[in-house]
């Protein structure tokens, strides 16, 4: 898994162990930072439904050497983004069963953990029930069939776009087919020919890093965000497996999932959206 998530997983485990183990209480009898945490949440439409929980600590950290890190467990059911020392967003799929999440607001100073502020919040509403039957319409149309692809389009704009991303520190563990997909000529030549061209004529496909940083805002960033969420959810269900990720779409339909095991399947998947 990508480095940051691995780090957070390790630290969340550590924080949980310290918090839960009566033999190892948090080491500081008098934490230098008193904290309460304000929690707000909002549903993010349309699909898949997400709830964004915004955690805000109430005390500014004035020590320039202090390190403040937020952790939220269970880590396989959420994605966190620390916005500042005092703020952290947590993204939870709202169609999971209601789940109690535990957060830790950890302050470290001078190399020691000096404060752990645990707390909980609940998120997840379970699957949405079907709408009640309309008594005025005895023969309502059947509901839309489930979309085997991801319901939120990775590239909602017109045109054929594709993005791979992978963690370069995992590259050694990828199969030859995966390496060929993210760097080989077959995929590159296909996408050079088929992908939408930008205003300079450059084909709109990319191979980014999992930790990619972007300048500005736009569709590559938005697709990458979606991919990282989907990727984290997939890895939580497939522990120990490391795969590169593929997002592809043409404005009408799209896909976000692991790069297929076989190179031919990757090319077929791209052709499904790019023709």
């Amino acid at each position, binding site marked *: 898994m990508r*480095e*940051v998530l*691995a*780090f957070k997983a*390790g*630290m969340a485990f*550590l924080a949980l162990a310290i918090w839960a183990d009566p033999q190892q209480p948090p080491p500081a009898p008098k934490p230098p930072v008193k904290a309460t945490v304000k929690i707000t949440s909002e549903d993010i439409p349309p699909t898949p439904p997400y709830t964004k929980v915004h955690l805000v600590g109430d005390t500014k950290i004035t020590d320039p050497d202090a*390190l403040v*890190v937020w952790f939220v467990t269970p880590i396989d059911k959420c994605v966190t983004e*620390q916005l500042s020392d005092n703020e952290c967003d947590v993204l939870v799929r709202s169609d999971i069963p209601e789940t109690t999440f535990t957060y830790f607001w950890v302050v*470290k100073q001078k190399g020691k953990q000096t404060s752990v502020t645990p707390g909980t919040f609940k998120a997840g509403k379970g699957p949405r029930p079907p709408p009640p039957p309309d008594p005025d319409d005895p023969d309502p149309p059947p509901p839309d069939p489930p979309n085997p692809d991801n319901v939120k389009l990775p590239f909602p704009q017109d045109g054929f776009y594709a993005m791979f991303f992978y963690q*370069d*520190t995992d*590259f*050694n563990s990828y199969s*030859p087919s995966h*390496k*060929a997909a993210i*760097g*080989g*000529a*077959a995929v*590159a*030549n296909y*996408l*050079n020919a088929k992908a939408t061209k*930008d205003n*300079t*004529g*450059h*084909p709109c*496909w*990319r*191979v*980014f*890093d999992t*930790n*990619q*940083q*972007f*300048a*500005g*805002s*736009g*569709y*590559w*960033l*938005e697709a990458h965000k979606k991919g990282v969420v989907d990727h984290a959810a997939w890895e939580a269900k497939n522990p120990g497996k490391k795969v590169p990720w593929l997002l592809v779409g043409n404005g009408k339909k799209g896909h976000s999932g692991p790069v297929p095991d076989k190179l031919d399947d990757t090319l077929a998947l791209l052709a499904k959206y790019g023709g």
Partner: protein
Amino acid sequence: MGRKKKQHIINDSTSNDVLFPKEFGRGFDKLQREQNDGYIPKASLSTDGSKIYLPQPHGADPVEIRIYEESEWDALYDEQEKNQSSLEHIRMRGDKGKPIPSYDQNGQGYCWMYSSCSALTASRAKQNQPYVRFSAHAGAWVIKKGADEGGWTGLAGPFVEEKGLPTVKEWPEKSMNGQTYNTAATWEVAKQYRPTETWIDMRAAAYDRTLARRVLATLLFNNIPCTGDYDWWSHSVGLLRWCRISAGSWGPLIWNSWTDSFGTQGMSKLEGSKAEHSGAIAFRTPMAMAA
């Protein structure tokens, strides 16, 4: 490299294990970067030289990268040939399916910055980001305060990581007119081309920042572009690939900054004692435009 250089002789009999730097690396985590005032010289090698450890902040388990055994190199090289997937291949189709042109340092002593330019260009090509031509003179001019002097890749790398590089639109290629082009606006543009993840041994002095041979081979087999300083040549170049010269003989494919007329479209293989580098850094991930 260039005209002022420190002699740093590599003994051919030195083993790989000795050549491994005990620690190398720099920033891969923004949070950690901020907490450490920009410098994260913490990555290390296992004692048997089989893994690179990338430690996470505050004691979490480090990420490991296994270093390829030499016995694996043939299969890796053959795989790259079969799939046309090395950085050499990517460079040759990186500009809308056509080769990305080589740089041209124009006879000045700025090769140590041009090598970073080549590596940064290759890292963008790997991501299929649009080809932009960087102005190496810009970075070297600022570091040397306008003087035409030699340097090392370990001097250029940290500067490029912090400031980025402007393109030739902001600072014309090979221009020494810093009085005109060295502006805040130029460097604001440069930021968007910054590499955000590199491996540079920041513990060492600029002239001693290097990567061991097997580390370099591993990074290049993993399509992570590098740079190399070569004392015998008094020159610094981009590195695109770890190549089989002949059975059992290996060396880097360099991307020179002497135009496409050098070697094969600006590239050449180094072998034997000429393949021994004295300095090296790696460019992992460049910044990307969001749209």
